């Protein structure tokens, strides 16, 4: 290692992991994480008002504010919160884990300014009522130019961070700051950054001409072409989330249980499958669109998407399997699932990640792949089944995993301890549980055909009356209750984080306080140090518990998938 060549003042040694934390990169990690949480709060407040409006007996907002709040919610959650947080992850993964300082401080500041200005601009114009176009802003619907410009500036800022990330990787390699290959977490973050570049370029192709159109400088883009390009942004950014989330799974699995990836080749191969194949999965937003042939739709959603699905199924095995091996090495060998009960459930970082993997796989993954089938999409397109699916992937999956990471980020990077640790322990369950309930409400209301992004499910005032079965309204109530619970969990999360970061006891020069018993922590530390030594050697291990879990998963998947085909036969014939 060539740390000696770097000035001592440029970094500090982490008391807990022994890794070097570089001060410039640390600043950018902190700044991006703080901004992320601010936009999470804005998006969260909007989310609460939406849940309370879709709940038919409450209908909190009026129609104008309902549509405005959807736009605000989607933009802050799917763009600002999640991408700011991912930028924090990129700074961390490229510096501390590669033992190098960030490539350029100037670029770091430029990106922060661009992204902040963009996010504020877009939020302002939405709240000012000049951009009630939803996150997707499908033309001919037109927003104020600042709406597009804000997102474009934000995207350019994010591209600058990606450039800084790649330049840091190059610098680390060139200066030989580490031996051999980069760690798996950095590999996953690199996957996320590559997909981010692809996503942001698609976004530029969709939004820059649309911005010109809103300024009166150009003709409107063809609505079908816009959808194709926009989903190159909209869906690919979900793959940034998936790659970043899986990296967080591996990261927390190591820190909380001492787990070591079973097979680096398999884990990295699965990440490469994301890069190669996930891009075309954007096609499943266009399955019932005019202008595209069936051949195009089937080709893009079958071979391409399913190899990316394969990647997620692989991670869905390797992450818990690595934990099972770690737990068995600690001596928890009782039966098939004895290790599972002994996992560090009291650690909110761990429980958030475990719930994230379960919600992402069992609910988000199964529904997503099924609804992304060309024919089944006829029963799902633009209904509440769609948000029912993606709140389980991007909220119950990614956002919850990021929350889990924060339980490590705050003590390790901000060097602050939490207050009210008992509440912290229940926070992931509250948030994850709320999201699961909400997602169920959405999905089942959606099977009755209840549309997403619809203010009034009774269609009051329509010339030709219509409405839904009362059971659909019960599910909308379930959506509302779940939303309120999830919001409580979100508010608790923000409260805990803010209290710790700004007012928490300092941990400077101290080890991170363990969430487990001292005995458990000692075993975990021992595994981490041991795992480092035996890396690269054959690591054959038996994982009967995890195989049991994934077989249950596969059966649930098959049942849901074929039940949907069966339901499809009840529809009129269409082709």
């Amino acid at each position: 290692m060539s740390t000696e060549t770097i000035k001592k003042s440029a970094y500090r040694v982490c008391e807990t992991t022994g890794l070097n934390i570089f001060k410039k990169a640390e600043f950018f990690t902190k700044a991006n994480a703080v901004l992320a949480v601010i936009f999470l709060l804005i998006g969260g407040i909007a989310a609460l008002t939406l849940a309370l409006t879709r709940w038919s007996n409450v209908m909190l907002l009026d129609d104008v504010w309902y549509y405005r709040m959807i736009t605000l919610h989607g933009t802050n959650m799917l763009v600002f919160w999640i991408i700011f947080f991912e930028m924090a992850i990129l700074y961390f993964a490229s510096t501390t884990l590669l033992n190098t300082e960030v490539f350029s401080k100037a670029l770091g500041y430029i990106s922060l300014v661009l992204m902040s200005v963009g996010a504020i601009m877009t939020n302002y114009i939405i709240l000012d009522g000049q951009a009630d176009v939803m996150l997707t802003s499908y033309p001919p619907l037109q927003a104020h130019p600042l709406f597009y410009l804000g997102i474009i500036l934000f995207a350019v800022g994010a591209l600058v961070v990606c450039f800084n990330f790649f330049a840091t990787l190059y610098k680390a390699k060139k200066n030989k700051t580490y031996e051999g290959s980069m760690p798996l977490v950095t590999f996953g973050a690199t996957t996320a950054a590559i997909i981010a570049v692809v996503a942001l370029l698609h976004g530029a192709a969709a939004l820059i001409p649309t911005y010109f159109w809103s300024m009166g400088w150009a003709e409107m883009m063809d609505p079908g072409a816009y959808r194709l390009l926009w989903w190159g942004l909209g869906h690919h950014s979900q793959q940034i989330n998936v790659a970043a989330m899986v990296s967080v799974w591996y990261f927390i699995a190591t820190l909380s249980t001492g787990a070591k990836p079973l097979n680096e080749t398999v884990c990295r191969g699965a990440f490469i499958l994301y890069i190669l194949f996930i891009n075309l999965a954007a096609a499943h937003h266009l399955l019932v669109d005019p202008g595209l042939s069936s051949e195009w739709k089937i080709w893009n959603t079958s071979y391409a998407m399913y190899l990316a699905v394969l990647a997620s199924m692989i991670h869905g095995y390797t992450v818990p399997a690595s934990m099972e091996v770690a737990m068995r090495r600690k001596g928890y060998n009782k039966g098939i699932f004895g290790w599972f009960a002994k996992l560090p459930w009291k650690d909110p970082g761990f429980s958030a990640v475990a719930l994230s993997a379960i919600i992402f796989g069992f609910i988000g993954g199964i529904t997503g792949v099924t609804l992304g089938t060309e024919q089944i999409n006829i029963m799902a397109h633009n209904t509440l089944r769609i948000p029912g699916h993606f709140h389980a992937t991007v909220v119950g999956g990614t956002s919850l995993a990021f929350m889990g990471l924060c339980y490590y980020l705050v003590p390790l990077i901000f060097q602050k301890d939490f207050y009210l640790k008992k509440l912290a322990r229940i926070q992931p369950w509250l948030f994850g549980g709320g999201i699961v309930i909400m997602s169920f409400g959405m999905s089942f209301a959606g099977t009755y055909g209840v549309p997403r992004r619809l203010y009034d499910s009774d269609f009051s005032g329509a010339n030709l009356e219509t409405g839904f079965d009362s059971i659909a309204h019960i599910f909308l109530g379930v959506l509302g209750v779940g939303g309120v619970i999830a919001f409580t969990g979100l508010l608790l999360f923000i409260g805990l984080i803010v209290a710790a970061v700004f007012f928490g006891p300092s941990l400077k020069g101290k080890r991170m306080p363990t969430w487990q018993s001292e005995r458990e922590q000692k075993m975990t530390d021992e595994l981490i140090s041991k795992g480092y030594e035996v890396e690269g050697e054959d690591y054959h291990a038996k994982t009967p518990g995890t195989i049991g879990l994934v077989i249950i998963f596969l059966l649930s998947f098959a049942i849901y998938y074929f039940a949907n085909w069966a339901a499809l036969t009840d529809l009129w014939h269409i082709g």
Partner: protein
Amino acid sequence: MSIFHPKGNWFRYPTGAERLWVGLALAWCLVMSITMPWWHFQGKQNAPQNSYTVEVSDFVGKAFEFAETNKVGEINGVPVAEVEPGGDGYLLGSMWRWYPILKLKKDQTYRIHVSSSDLQHGLSILPINMNIHVLPGYDHVMTITPTTSGEFSIVCNEFCGIGHHTMTGRIIVEE
């Protein structure tokens, strides 16, 4: 460790349980990959396969002409147009109504042309829950055969401005 650098040559094929799972997962992905095209040829429910680009004004003209020449009644001021079995019908989405009301016969096949005169719309037939996307400038042709009779609603499920939740229409299917 996922946070440390693997040393030496870490390339190796999956073994044991891991290999079993990769194999099972791949097999399942292949099953799904085959099911979709198989249904395309054998199944009765597929995403509409025909669509054409069209001038918005041409389509609007055709829809009005169709509604007028095939008019058999009126509900709340909206014409009811009967489509000839095997023939072509038109359905125009605009802010904020579906025009006209279509009258069909059960188990007969129709070609229904759907488009928009303004924004993007989502055609959603309830309560059977069939949904397709509607774009201005595209004539989206649904070849449909109603297999149940009764009155069906059409709603819009793509946001199309402040009156979005009042955009409804109707399809009447007779025995």
